[in-house]
């Protein structure tokens, strides 16, 4: 009885009125038929006119745009839960989660849906994106892999932690990802959806990665870097709880253990990237905390060249130029068992 709209864009808005236009431009500019798309704004009880702006958009595009306003501000995890709940009677074929200020380039939806139609096993399509700085300049990122590829998550779980450190991506999911209605995996709710690391969760299924840049995201640095890192660490701990607490070693668990160590190393390296960023702000305390955090999560990182260089730079108050490249490697070849296209 209900029409199924192919694509749902879900946008969480938290007092970001001035950024909504940009995102809407991206959606309106899609080559994919507009009648097959829907936009749901989840308004986190904004007070800056965001809600009014959304209502204006609804008036202008009544069959495209919809809104749900929370009565009191809440956390991202609960917004996501509420969105899932709100859409439980709307059969959703494909979905994309956006922040205001993120823009999807015009061909992405068509390409991603085409891919998922052709291959029923693909659960999500990820693509490279550009980063839009606060001065509106666009920075290109190097693609994570040298070729477009299809990755089996269960077989290549560690890949999401071994590659693309610090890389940002955008994704279109089949259905209302992440996870089934009632099961939001911890990582998904906390990880910035644009983190490549976040693609690891949930841990089954196949995803496609496109090297071409199909959009841009607004540069976002968390207000409380430590909270952000710690929450990701917490999510990882939950994810690997069984692996860490089981005493017997089987082949599978050896692989899980390797994946787990890769994950902790990845988050430690993310902390190092934050430390490098403090050069602009001069926040030495934060830089030191990042180093401590990195060591706490991955004891071996103290032997890494990047760590040593950062530590020296902080102590001697010298520049951290060039250290980033030691962590953020260039494009790598996809693993041999991935399908390249």
């Amino acid at each position, binding site marked *: 009885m209900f029409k199924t709209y192919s694509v749902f864009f879900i946008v969480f808005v938290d007092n970001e009125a001035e950024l909504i236009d940009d995102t809407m431009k991206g959606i309106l500019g899609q080559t994919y038929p507009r009648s097959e798309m829907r936009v749901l704004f989840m308004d986190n009880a904004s007070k800056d006119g965001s809600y009014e702006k959304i209502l204006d958009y609804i008036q202008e595009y009544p069959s495209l745009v919809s809104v749900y306003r929370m009565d009191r501000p809440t956390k991202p995890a*609960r917004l996501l839960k509420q969105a899932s709940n709100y859409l439980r009677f709307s059969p959703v074929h494909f979905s994309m989660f956006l922040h205001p200020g993120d823009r999807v380039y015009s061909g992405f939806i068509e390409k991603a849906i085409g891919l998922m139609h052709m291959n029923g096993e693909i659960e999500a399509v990820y693509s490279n994106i550009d980063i839009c700085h606060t001065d509106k300049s666009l920075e290109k990122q190097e693609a994570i892999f040298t070729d477009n590829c299809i990755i089996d998550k269960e077989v290549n779980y560690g890949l999401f932690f071994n590659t693309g450190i610090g890389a940002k991506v955008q994704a279109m999911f089949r259905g209302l990802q992440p996870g089934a209605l009632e099961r939001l995996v911890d990582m998904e709710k906390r990880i910035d959806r644009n983190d490549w690391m976040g693609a690891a969760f949930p841990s089954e299924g196949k995803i496609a990665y496109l090297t071409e840049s199909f959009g841009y995201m607004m540069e976002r640095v968390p207000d409380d870097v430590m909270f952000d890192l710690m929450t990701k660490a917490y999510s990882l701990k939950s994810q690997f*709880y069984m692996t860490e*607490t089981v005493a017997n070693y089987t082949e599978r668990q050896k692989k899980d253990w390797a994946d787990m160590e890769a994950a902790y190393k990845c988050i430690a390296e993310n902390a190092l990237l934050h430390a490098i960023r403090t050069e602009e702000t001069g926040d030495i305390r934060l830089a030191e905390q990042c180093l*401590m955090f990195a060591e*706490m999560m991955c004891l071996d990182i103290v032997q890494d060249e990047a760590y040593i260089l950062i530590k020296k730079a902080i102590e001697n108050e010298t520049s951290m130029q060039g250290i980033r490249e030691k962590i953020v490697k260039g494009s790598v070849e996809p693993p041999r068992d991935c399908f390249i296209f």
Partner: protein
Amino acid sequence: MKRKPLVSIIIPNYNHSMYLDQSINSALNQTYSNIEVIVNDNASSDNSIAVVKKYIDQGVVVNKNPQNIYNFNYDILDDSVSGEYFVLLCADDILKSDFVEKAVRIMEEYPEIGFVHGERDYIDEHGRITELDPFFNCSFRVNGEEILPIFTLTDIGQSAQAVIRTSAFVRAGKHDTQSDHLNIDREQWFRLAMVSDYAYIREKMALIRMPETTSETSRIIETFYHPIALYHTAKSFEEWAKLNDYPRVSERIEVAIKRFAKECLGFAKVFLKRENYELAKRYLLFIRFADRGIISDEEYQKCWTILQEKRGASVEVDEYKKSSNYAFRKRNYEPPENYVLMEDTI
């Protein structure tokens, strides 16, 4: 009390068949008459179901999960709450017979109160009781916002010590294991206090089981999960405080984190003693990470030296698992500001 609305006593159970008789009886023997008792079994592998069966003639119901779903059982048992009030009685705990009556009377009189804590003693696996100092020095009721800062540091009471008004619980977002996971009690009290008022009964209302060893606690400490979860919870409260404008909570967060850091020092010593230097190092790093000032602490410095020299065997510390450790804690704190004394009404 004129009205006697239904009170649901939900008993989540996993392999606690040896304690179920006591907990179920304590629920059935409440002086309050309108009670339903529901056991939520999380796929126990012992004879729990056989134990519960003895009570189904008295109206006790047991719902069983086909697979063990860990802490998500809390979310599932939310579905079983049909009373206007409810108690989450852990399968190994015991309620005092007049707890529900006293708590419901308070909440019937004061509709703004969303939950009531009673006091507790500990009981071990052999039935030996350790008497504890009450947390506060009097019974009182208070506005929810006043008690919020306290929950940043401690939970005051565990699940079995609380009778909760279901409508407040729903407003607070019910159980949300995906977001809360560990520290479930504390997060829950915090969220309840954001939407309702609080009352505290200084009388001992529950016996909380604290065996010599709790395997779950050991696991989370020994996989370095515990400090991360604590830090995350503290910051999570800070996030709520910012969203809803509770400056006094925001102020307390740093204090809370420093307190946790100090607690972790104890764990670090235990691991040094066990000569598990990797784990000890992580804890010591965490402590410094959480509290910069600890570098000047003598004890902390000693631990670092012991770590570097690998002299763990020389450390003097008790293993963290003993329940009898708690008997010596002195509490009886002053209630938060703007409290209203409540001796007469109980």
